[in-house]
């Protein structure tokens, strides 16, 4: 478990934190790429509950990988919780490394929205960022559905299809 912290330094004044506490995101998207063509994508609601997860890659899926990915992404929440309040950027690239895997996080603004995180091994930062942004859009559309209870699991197959399409496009 050789891990390097990202380039982020957790230094922000208290006042700054307080000021931002109203704008910072409740939504994290975790995406996890395991092999070059494999990525695991997770949306974590507030309370750190995963509300959507998908293996968004074309690589052969290993059964045991799911457990490992979940574990890595879950542990990365420790860092997200440290950094989310000290950074002003929404996209926290490569904020955690796990051997060859990298966790990228997209922290959305607002109080009812989740945090987006991505674990991947590619260095295609722009692609990942675009992916996050589009997924964020999708999520907001889901949220507009009056039958969707914020914070509950996303079971929409349409959402799933869209996310996978986006993953193919950008990752």
């Amino acid at each position, binding site marked *: *478990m*050789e891990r*390097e912290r990202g380039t982020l330094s*957790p230094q922000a004044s208290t006042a700054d934190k307080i000021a931002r506490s109203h704008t910072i995101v409740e939504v994290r998207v975790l995406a996890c790429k395991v092999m070059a063509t494999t990525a695991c994508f997770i949306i974590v609601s507030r309370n750190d*509950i*995963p509300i959507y997860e998908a293996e968004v890659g074309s690589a052969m899926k*290993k059964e*045991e990988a799911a457990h*490992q990915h979940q574990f890595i992404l879950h542990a990365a929440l420790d860092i997200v919780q440290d950094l989310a309040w000290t950074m002003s950027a929404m996209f926290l690239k490569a904020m955690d490394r796990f051997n060859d895997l990298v966790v990228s996080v997209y922290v959305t603004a607002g109080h009812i929205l989740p945090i987006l995180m991505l674990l991947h091994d590619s260095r295609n930062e722009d692609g990942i960022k675009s992916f996050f942004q589009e997924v964020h859009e999708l999520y907001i559309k889901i949220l507009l559905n009056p039958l969707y209870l914020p914070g509950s*699991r996303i079971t929409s197959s349409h959402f799933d299809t869209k996310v996978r399409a986006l993953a193919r496009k950008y990752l």
Partner: protein
Amino acid sequence: MANYLSPFQTIKSACDRLVIAVEDVSDLWPSVKEGFEQRLPFQKACLNNKTRNPVFVEQLPAEFILTTDPRLRSRFPQEQSVFWFREPYATVVLVTCEDLEEFKTILKPRLKLIVQNDEKEWFIVFVSKAHPSNDQATKMAKKVYAKLEVDFSSKKRERCCKLDLHGTESIFWEDLESKMVESIRNTLDRRVQFYEEEIRKLSEQRFLPVWNFCNFFILKESLAFMFEMAHLHEDSLREYDELELCYLETVNTPVRQREFGGLDHGDDQAALLNPVFKPLTQIIQDDSFREFEFRQYLFACQSKLLFKLSRPVEVAARGYAFIISFSKTLALHENALPFCLREAWVITACLAVINSTSSHYDGGVVAPDVEKEFYRLQGDLYSLCRIKFMRLAYLIGYGVEMERSPANSASLSMLPWPRPAVWPVSSPDASSEVFAKEKIILQANPGAKHFDIQRKPLPLEPSSLLREANRRRASLSIGNVSELLDSRHSVTDGSGADGVSKFSPSSKTNPSSMSRNFSGPVNFESSSPSLDRPMRLSEIHVAAEHALKRTISDLDLLKSLSTLQDFEQKYMELTKGAADKYHNSCWKRHGVALDREIAALCFKHGNFDLAAKSYEKVCALYAGEGWQDLLAEVLPNLAECQKILNDQAGYLSSCVRLLSLDNVLFSTKERRAFQSEVVRLAHSEMKHPVPLNVSSLITFAGNPGPPLELSDGDPGTLSVTVWSGFPDDIALESLSMTLVATNNVDEGVEAIKCSDAPVLKPGRNTVTLALPPQKPGSYVLGVLTGQIGHLRFRSHGFSKGGPPDSDDFMSFEKPTKPVLKVFKPRPLVDIVAAISSALLMNEPQWVGLIVKPMNYSLRGAILHIDPGPELMIEESQMIEIEDYMSVMERMPQITESIALENVSSISTEKSEQLLLGNGKIALPDWASDITTVLWFPVRAIDDRMARGTSAVYPQRQSVVDGMRTIALKLVFGAFHNQIFERTIAVHFTNPLHVSTRVVDKCNDGNLLLQVIMHSQVKASIHIYDAWIDLQDGFVHIGKGDGRPISSFFPVVISPSSRAAILFSIRLGSMTNEDEVPTESILNMRYGVSGDRNVGAHTPVSANPGVERELLFKSTLILQRPVLDPCLAVGFLPFSSDCLKVGQLVSMQWRVERLKDLVESPRSTLNVLQDELLYEINVNPDNWMIAGRKRGHVFLSTMQGSRVVITVTCVPLISGYVRPPQLGLPDVDDANISYNPAGPHLVCVLPPTLSSSFCVPAAA
């Protein structure tokens, strides 16, 4: 210059503080030495750092050395430029002189010689030995010192100070100290400048071939060392940082192939905190140093300075980064290094950093953020160390004992195998060890997952070790065997257990048998692993163990790898360390992942208590954050612990949690196993039956749609939807539900029990609950409780109408929908009398009751009717019920019915006849929701006869007389729980009210008696006949029967109107017989035509076709005339106008006989006599009667005879006085008519004044 390295090291180790030279000119040092050395180390010395900014050094150590000391004398001059840092930083010249001449001739030239060297920072201390009492000597010393000052001090700089040996001037010492520090500062500045210049010169040559890193290093380190001596650690650290950068730059230039190092014995032990681990001279290579040692040396120097600066946190941070980057460097050179040196180095390096930073970290005043960061770094270090340690242990065959958790798997399976140039080969004589290893592998207890959970075990290796090791054996020809091995092994590849599948019993024996296939016992016993034969797993382990023993020099590490127990002890130590540190740093997720590993090991060692505690922590976090995959992986372990510990409550709740996890995480078979465990425990004899919370498993909700609405006091049936998360049907002993009033939380809730013991199917069930009457309010579902076997369970889980989704934590925030509304008590039904006007007394009459349900069904209602006193129900009659129409609607029909003289001709759509039984009737079902009228016949009984009244003096009849009450009780509601009671007043009356008056008294003594009949009912009364039975004293005229002319009949009296009949009667004689009636009675035969909806009507009869005439009787009271005057007494006026006292006055009464007193019984005696007795009634105080007061006068018995009675009397007092009255005692008052009547009072004047009464006293 490279050959300076060795002396440089010597010098550096020999000198550790700044040197101040003492030029003891006058042999004074022994006497002042003590005082000088007391000033050391200097407090708050102000020095300049490299950027020429003043820095206050708290404690600056220094050393005084005499110039005659060999340490200063024996130096070669050429060394000085490089090793300048060791030269004195100040020179103190100690002099004394008591003679001016001597100073001028001897001392001054000598001093001039000493101080002529400009490079020295010097100053003179003049020591005065003169005793203060010796004035002469003191004066002289002063003079000499003054001279000294003139000669050596300049305006710019004071270079002299004076020490009185016998004085106690503290000023001197401060002065001395400041002078010394000033000198040191100046020297330091100059030397820094010098070194910088030198370094700059060298740096310029960096890309020239002549460049020599060693020289650069010596200069740079000299400077750094000088800063360190001066306690300017920051500057020193910066020098080392620059040095490191510079070194990395040289190392990374791929010009020349350099030796890396790390091949010496003991190199596996990281020396990153020990700068003197190896002398630099040993690691020199060409013009530079070996990277392996030198980078550790640099880091050691840096960390030493950081510790001096009290920054252990930074040491940890730099150390972690250094270990990571150095580990990568090691990986680059791995094929040149001993087997697994990299792993061993990382382990020792991490432990070294952890230990030293922990010992230097006092946890003092640091910001919480920094503290967290520190613990986090330590946790990272521990974690890194732990992984490498596990990798080593795996290589030597302890892998089968490792927990295949996601954390371990993720860490290890993504960590590549070591890549030695040649994989170690087991020595031929290690066959016994190979056996032992094989045994371990075979005996490894693949702890079957609890509940027979079948899972593919997670891998602990990036690829099969068997394949990797054999592939890396240089000697093994890439031939069929390895190909075969690859293809065969790919079947189990990724199963995670180099040949031993830990979790799947079915494939458990495969790998070993496979390895036998390849090697075979024969082959094996032929000992030496031939070059062509691939190694077996156990051989790989043995070979690795041997290689590691060669590599690792750290005894501690070796020991912890020697046996399984030692390995587990160390493993536990590292895991606990990492977990603790992560928990301290609030990285709970990292910490919890390690807690799980601790738990696994505790479990393995049978320490179930600790294991359960740790597992609980893990499960709590995963469950709290809803990471079900991870939870599903741990929870069975926790359940197993609890089962072993006999913690039934915990075990049950774990089973329930397992069941409530997402369906896809466990197969149906596994879920059934969970359920059967729950059921088994529930039906077993539990010592302490525990309540179980199944909120996540069994959820419930009210039915969709509006809530059940009940009236106050009504029971009802509530149906509730219950979702069962059990995979199979589950039979419950009981099931109950509490209802919580939304408006009143304080009130205790009562559970409502389901009547039968339900069997819950998987998924949706509908349960009906019988509700007892509830208080008014709105209710939501509270808690579901129930019993499985002996086990009581409860669930708070509301479901939003779908299958239970335990992910959805927000469902708890959902406002719960009321399932039941109980209305406040309100009138549910109203019963009023249908008519308001009076009914006929003593006749059977219909009484109508309007029964009006108010949005409430009266199905099955029973009406109890209880007539009050003087009222009876005609039970022979049927009771009629019909639907109700308002009066306005009925009016045309009523009019018609009256016209037709029907009781009621209203035709309603529904009507029915009911039978009254035992005072009760049951309302028909059709009447349950509509307003109906209930008619039942009653008869009010009144024995008294109606009384007529005089029209002149009308007497009102009391209404109460005709009032009768009917008590009603309506029992209704689904469970006959509602009761409506009311007492209804019904007014009865006689049809007519009769009054009489005498219209005229005729001259012939006849009387015209008018009988006025006032109708009392709202119905037309037809009078067919009427007659009067007269009382004694009255007779009908003409001896008739007293009937009016019959042609007038029938008379019709409209409602509330009056009619009159005239009867002519006259006074008759009194008979004085007892049996003669004393009251007259009016008899009437009549009929009534009215509608029962309005009021009085034709009496109910058994056969309605026959019209019956009714008889009405009313008493009339006729009074004979009261007055019958026989005598008239008239008062004659006074003769004079005024009466005066003493004046005679005659009073006259005229008595006249009006008629004979024949008929007066009392006067029968006097009738025969003509005498009339009279009497004057007078007050003798007022009047004096002249004559007789009482006497008889003659009065003829003839009618019209008259006599005047005269009485003379004198008034005695003046004023208004009552005059005398004439009374006739023998005659009844009723027979006397006073006409005109005498006055009541007369005015008597006082007597006129008369002298005759005034008799003089003298006369």
